[in-house]
Each structure stands twice: as C-alpha cells, then as structure tokens.
C-alpha cells in the first residue's frame, strides 16, 4: 500500500514535470478554455441577474472541455517509444499508475481553471474573489471527479482508433451528475447565496460522485491496463 502510494507520487511528479517542460496539453487546454469563454460572450446577450444565474453552467462547460483535452494526453503521452508497455510491465501496481496519472491531470486542470477564472470574472464582470476559497473547494472536488473518470477513460481509449473522438463521447454522459452538482454549487457561490438546501445537496452529490468513481476506477483499472 505504502509502496503503491510512493509509486503514485513518483508517476504524478514525472507527468507534471514532463508537462511543465513541454507544456503540450496545458497550453492547448488553457487557450482552448479562453477561446470558449470568448465564444460564449457572443452566444448570450444577458443582463446582470441572468448572467449570475448561468455563471456556474458557463464556467463548468469551459472547465469540462478543457479537462477532456488534459486527460486525453494522460495515457497517450506514454505511447511513443512503447513507454506504456514498460509502465504496465513494471512492478508498480495498476492502481498506483492510475492514481499518479489522475493526480497529475488534477493539478494540470486546476492550473487551467485558475487561469480561466479571473478571465471569466473580467470578461463577464462577475465578482468571484469574495467566495474564492469556497469556490476553490468546489473546483477541487469537481476537478477530481473529472480527472479520475477522465483518466480512467483515457486508459480505455488509449489503444483504440479514433481515440480523440471516443473519449468525449464516453466521458461527458458519465460526467453529467458531477457537472450538475458543480454548476449548482458554483452558481450559488457566485451569486452569494448561503450554502443550504439545494447548494448543499449539490455539494453532497459532488462528494458522492468522487467517492464512488474513485473507488470503482481504482478497483477496475487493473483489468483495463492489462489487456
């Protein structure tokens, strides 16, 4: 268990280091997020009240699009030079490899989100700074959900043709409950509503989603990586 966790940390470090050196997916993901943010401003012409009402939805659509780009590279990064085969053949347990990759994708997506959030506030004139810490908690929970499911499906699609097409087809339907929860909580936070009733239920949904899918993915990843 402890060795597995150490392996996971090592793999996360390796992935983060490679990514921060080459910046291949983080640059693409961040600029894509910005483009989508700009596009949304043409799609909707809204008053202030309405803008706050849909702010959570806008934000999480952007984040989930950016997330798909990040997790797509999680396992695909290992394909050149057959690194994936070596990784799977190594004594590291499958769940540790998966956990390490999920953690790396989590931090990468969180960085993209932290870049997009101020831009979003700026473009749409939304005040987010007051509820920043609560938002960060919601972002962390939902981002973990996106990356854990995304990395699992990245492992599923890594060896199949049309990988880039198949990942979103599989990923977004699975993420629906998570996105509903994240959108609900974020909208409530940005609008400055107290955390009770619906918002609290959304938060519980986020935690439940994370717990269920983390457990399921850690348990089943063994079957996926070794085929």
């Amino acid at each position: 268990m402890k060795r597995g966790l150490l392996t996971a940390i090592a793999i996360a470090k390796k992935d983060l280091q490679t990514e921060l050196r080459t910046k291949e997916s983080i640059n693409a993901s961040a600029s894509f997020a910005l483009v989508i943010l700009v596009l949304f401003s043409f799609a909707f012409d809204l008053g202030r009240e309405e803008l706050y009402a849909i702010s959570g939805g806008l934000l999480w659509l952007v984040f989930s699009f950016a997330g798909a780009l990040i997790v797509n590279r999680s396992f695909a990064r290992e394909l050149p030079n057959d690194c994936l085969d070596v990784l799977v053949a190594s004594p590291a347990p499958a769940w540790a490899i998966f956990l390490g990759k999920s953690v790396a994708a989590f931090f990468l997506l969180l960085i993209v989100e932290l870049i997009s959030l101020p831009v979003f506030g700026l473009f749409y004139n939304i005040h987010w700074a007051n509820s920043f810490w609560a938002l960060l908690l919601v972002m962390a929970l939902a981002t973990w959900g996106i990356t854990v499911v995304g990395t699992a499906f990245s492992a599923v699609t890594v060896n199949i043709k049309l990988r880039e097409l198949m990942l979103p087809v599989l990923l977004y339907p699975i993420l629906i409950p998570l996105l509903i929860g994240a959108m609900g909580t974020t909208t409530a936070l940005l609008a400055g509503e107290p955390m009770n009733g619906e918002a609290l239920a959304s938060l519980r949904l986020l935690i439940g989603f994370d717990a269920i899918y983390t457990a399921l993915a850690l348990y089943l990843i063994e079957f996926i990586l070794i085929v």
Partner: protein
Amino acid sequence: MREKAIYILAILAAVVMISNLKTVFTGLPDEAMQGAIYRIIFIHVPAAINADIFFTISLVTSILFLMKKNFFWDSVSVSCIEVGTMLVLLNLVTGSIWGRNQWGVWWAWDLRMTSQLMCFLLYLGYLLVRPAIAEPTQRATLSAFIAIFAYADIPLVLMAIRLPNVRTQHPGPVLETGTMAAEFRAPFAIGILAIFLICSALVLIRLHQETAQREIDSLRRELHSV
C-alpha cells in the same frame, strides 16, 4: 436446438403481443381525461421496465466477464445492451409522442425524461466505442468496464436531477399506489411480458450472431497464421 428455442420464443412473443394489442385497442374504453392516446402507456412503460431488466443483466454479465474472462458473458452483455438501448429509444419516442399530444411539447426536461435520455446516451457511447476496438479480448474487457461505469451513473443522474426542486410532469406512481384502473392492469402486465419475450428472442438472435462472429474471426486468424 437454439434456433428452435428462438422460433418458439418469437412465435409466443408475437401471439402474446398481438392478442394484447387487440385487447388494448378494441377491448379497453378510452381514458376519461386523455382519450385514446393513453394506450401508449402499454408500450411506453413496459419498454422502460424491460430496458432496466436488460441493463441489469448486462451489468451482471459484464462483472462475470471481468471475473471469468469467458467470452460468452461479453456476448450476453452486448446483446442485452443493444436491445436495452433500443427499448430506451422506444420509451423516449413513445413518451415524446404522448407528451406532444398531452402537454403540447415534444420534450420537457422533466425528471424521468432527463434521466432516461442520459441512460440512452451512456449506452450509446458503449455501442459506439465497441466497433472501434479491434482486438477481441481488449474489446470485451473495455466494454465490460464501460458497462459497469454506465450502470453506476444512473442512480447518480437520478439523484442529480432531483436536486433543483423537482420538476416532474409525469403522472404519479400509479403502479405502487394502485390508482390504475383494475381493467388496465392485466393488459399492462401482459404488455411487460410481451416486450420481454420479444426482446429475449432478439437477445438470443444477437447472441447467436456474436458467437458466429467470434468463430469467423478465430478462423480468419488461423488462416492468416498458416
């Protein structure tokens, strides 16, 4: 033997379905509020119930495949999911037609409609990804994984769309509370049975095709190796 079973099942299904449709269309009176359109319920709800049955079977067989690595279970899973997805589509389409007639809109983002649509999309993903994977063991394993994930999502989607103060336009739970008129109950139950029989026959046919397909594939591989 198996072909005989399929024929018998199909004939039985046809008889039950047609006789039930006859009762529904000629034996039952129009409903007091809705008129004739209510008859859609004898297809609409049984389709949904049967879809759930077949998805549950696919969950069990997907887990069995991961445990035993027997391709038979993979074939059962894909057959059940294909038939189940078709049933969900039938459920959505009939519901939409009924909604247009009764509510005046084709779609309402109502609680059950949304969850059923998500269910359709999840399993559609399964069916789309499957043909993209060439290697049989890989295809079966990854499919089983997707099937388990898809099934785990359904209770969550249900919970999620319940969050913002329930918007449901669906009639209340008529079955559990027993508010369905007594004369509707028998055709309703037989409707469930009829669709179950038809779909079981379809699953068996698909299973047959899957087995044949696997044999052809293995023969082809053998040929290539010579």
